[in-house]
């Protein structure tokens, strides 16, 4: 086993994150957060961006960290909360809303699963001075659940359901996350993917061609696949 902990940079800072905190982050760094974060995904984006509803809390004064997540949490009849595990959901699906969301919310950090495209980083994140943190694994629900100290509020639980609602959490030593994109729009996933891609052709070298082709090998719908 390689001794990872000595070699990967590890940082911890407060939310709302300052431009200086964000500027120090390098792709592949390990990050822990303290402060307030909120969840937001298609349900929230739809309401705010498509339907023009007001964001129900003071952003970015309260927080500039948007978590793509639905917690495994229940709202009790007496209005209290039971938060179990917390895990991110795949972020690439939210690409079309991110530009507008940065404008409206002032978010500087997006936490999610799997990153977004290099294109999105360059076109949307870099101009907004924002970076992307990916959760690790991705099933670190229990570790992240531990980092949540308190549910401050839940918005639109009724209208959107618990999974899509906007949860506002107070967090402590919340992580680990890995920096996927930095302020220049470099991407860890993109860089790692390119290293792996270099080897892919050779895996297929000894395999005979398939009896029947399929879509994916051609993108011309008029081609016969035989």
């Amino acid at each position: 086993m390689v001794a990872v902990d000595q070699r990967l940079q590890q940082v911890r800072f407060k939310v709302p994150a300052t431009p200086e905190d964000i500027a120090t982050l390098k792709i592949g760094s390990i990050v822990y957060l303290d402060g307030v974060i909120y969840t937001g995904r298609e349900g929230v984006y739809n309401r705010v961006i498509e339907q023009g509803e007001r964001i129900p809390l003071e952003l970015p004064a309260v927080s500039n960290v948007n978590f793509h997540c639905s917690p495994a949490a229940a709202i009790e009849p007496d209005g209290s909360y039971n938060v179990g595990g917390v895990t991110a959901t795949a972020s690439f699906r939210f690409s079309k809303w991110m530009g507008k969301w940065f404008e409206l919310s002032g978010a500087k950090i997006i936490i999610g699963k799997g990153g977004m495209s290099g294109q999105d980083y360059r076109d949307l994140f870099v101009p907004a001075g924002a970076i992307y943190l990916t959760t690790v694994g991705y099933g670190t629900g229990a570790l992240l659940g531990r980092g949540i100290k308190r549910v401050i509020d839940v918005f639109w639980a009724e209208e959107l359901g618990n999974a899509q609602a906007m949860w506002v959490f107070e967090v402590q030593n919340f992580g680990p996350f890995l920096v996927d994109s930095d302020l220049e729009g470099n991407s860890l996933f993109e860089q790692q993917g390119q290293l792996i891609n270099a080897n892919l052709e050779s895996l297929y070298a000894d395999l005979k061609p398939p009896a029947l082709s399929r879509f994916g090998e051609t993108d011309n719908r008029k081609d016969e696949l035989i």
Partner: protein
Amino acid sequence: MIPYDCIEQAAFNIMERAAIDIPEDYRQSIVELADTEQSELSCFVLKTMIENYGAATADRRPMCADTGLPRYYVKVGNDARPEGGFIALEKALRSATARATHDIPLRPNRVHPLWRTDLNNNVGINAPEIDWSFEPDVDWIDLTTVHKGGLFGTDYRMLFPGDGIDGIKRFLLDALIAFGKRGLACQPAIVGVGLGGSKDACMVLGKQAACLRIVGDRHPDPKIAKLEMELKDLGNSIGMGPMGFVGSSMVADLHIEVGYTHTGGMPMSVHTFCLASRRATVRIHADGHLEYRTDPQWFSKYSRRETVEWSQ
């Protein structure tokens, strides 16, 4: 007669175990992969996962907040008699699902496919899925629950006999590479490969191979067992580890299940059971006594028989 309440409670209990406690066979495989992994990023991910399993068990909280699509596999002894019959048994499983969703809690993932209606209890039209099988000469009922994340890692392809083993390898590589990028499949995975059957049966077999056999289990046919190991090694030679980082930890184990199929074809399905490989089983004995385990023992000589008659 097995009391209704006993079945409902057992069904609830395994939902809790599945959501929180990683099966030891899978945990051990991640420890071993972390030992051999040379990439520091991949190794960091594996070590974080191991830490996460510990936190889940210590805090009694779900290991992954995406508690997947909770569902049941039921194996009924030919001599087992559930109170109220099988309609009551299905009701018990639906009731346990709703109760577990609130009490553990599980994420209420289940929604109507078109209207996105969420009843907040993981129950709905055709949900939870309940798969049935039978076992001769016994009077117990085995309940297994699986919480599998659902969006990435599953694919189907109609291959042809002429494609042979090369075709199987090609499709496996295609699927693992496609879903492994950025770690969308949350690998290292227990990979299930379904071969043969009709298209729907092929999907079911592959899914069960991934979710209902433990790491280290080998198919009883030695030639299939050998192919399982060969395909596992192939998956780990891609050069991809967890989260799609450079690495060698892609496949924790690989299981193949076969079914007799159309003479002109060789349908194949691939399924990946993720870093939160959650399964738990309870055996409900005729006297209501409960026995828990993490090995579903779903496939048996009986379920894999190829004869008309059954004899032990």
